[in-house]
């Protein structure tokens, strides 16, 4: 068959690339929703345990120079 004119071939080429990117976007969206569900369940678990703070408001990380003066608690 002779080569298709650009305006007609463009539709097929666009179609093929749209299919590829749509598949990837759907896949990433599904994984993203799974991760969101895991986060939600983790928050629920945190509340059940009653530890209060979640990862977002977890313990403050001190710079090494401030930590140097700390001593390990003794029994």
């Amino acid at each position, binding site marked *: 068959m002779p080569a298709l004119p*650009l305006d007609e071939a463009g539709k097929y080429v666009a179609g093929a690339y749209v299919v590829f990117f749509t598949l*990837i976007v759907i896949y990433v969206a599904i994984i993203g929703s799974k991760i969101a569900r895991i986060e939600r369940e*983790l928050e629920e678990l945190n509340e059940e345990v009653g530890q209060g703070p979640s990862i977002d408001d977890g313990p403050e990380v001190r710079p090494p120079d401030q930590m140097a003066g700390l001593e390990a608690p003794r029994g």
Partner: protein
Amino acid sequence: MYSKGFRPLSIATVVALASALALVFFYAPNDADQGFVQKIFYVHVPMAIVALGGWVAGGLMAIKHLRSGDRSWDVRSYVAIHLSIILGVGVLVTGAIWARASWGHWWVWDEPVLVSFLIVFLLYCVYYPLRFSIEDPERQARYSSVFAITAGAFVPLNFIAVRLAESFTHPRVLSQTGGNLPGEMRLTFLVSLAAMTLLFVTLWKLELASKNASAQLKRLRTKLNARLAA
């Protein structure tokens, strides 16, 4: 564990995909025979190669599972096969679009490349019902691994079939003598293949990280429930 090195990998994937697209549409010349429609080649063929590679990799990971007894290898194998099936859907759809544009038909049954890929794809579609029909996790992992190894060994037949096929409608891309791609097309193809491989690895790691987090959460909940019950 699985999220280690995820950020640089994701960045590399996005850069590679953007570079591949730029090369496809601004650097690679139009094919003398097929014209602009040949641009589908740069998404269709890398996707097919990576999907077939993913299935073989799934088989190798299944071997590792059966040898070590470590179930994490079964999960790795499952995710590789699962991703390859998704890419396989893309290969079949983009292939049909390309066939319609080039040959005037959505599907050609006497073309060995298409039919052999469809057979491999359908073979792997059996993997899901096999895996999820078994409730016992140990047996599920073992049977799935045996399937993954058997089917993975079948995949190279697809390549051999292509090599043996003497049809000129499906051009050879790469061969020991260099294939029949000119320099610009070859470079564009190789960049597209690298981008597709990076995309596969990134998505594989992403799904593994999600599955790992989900499994850890489940374990935590079980422990908590046991403590509350005690």
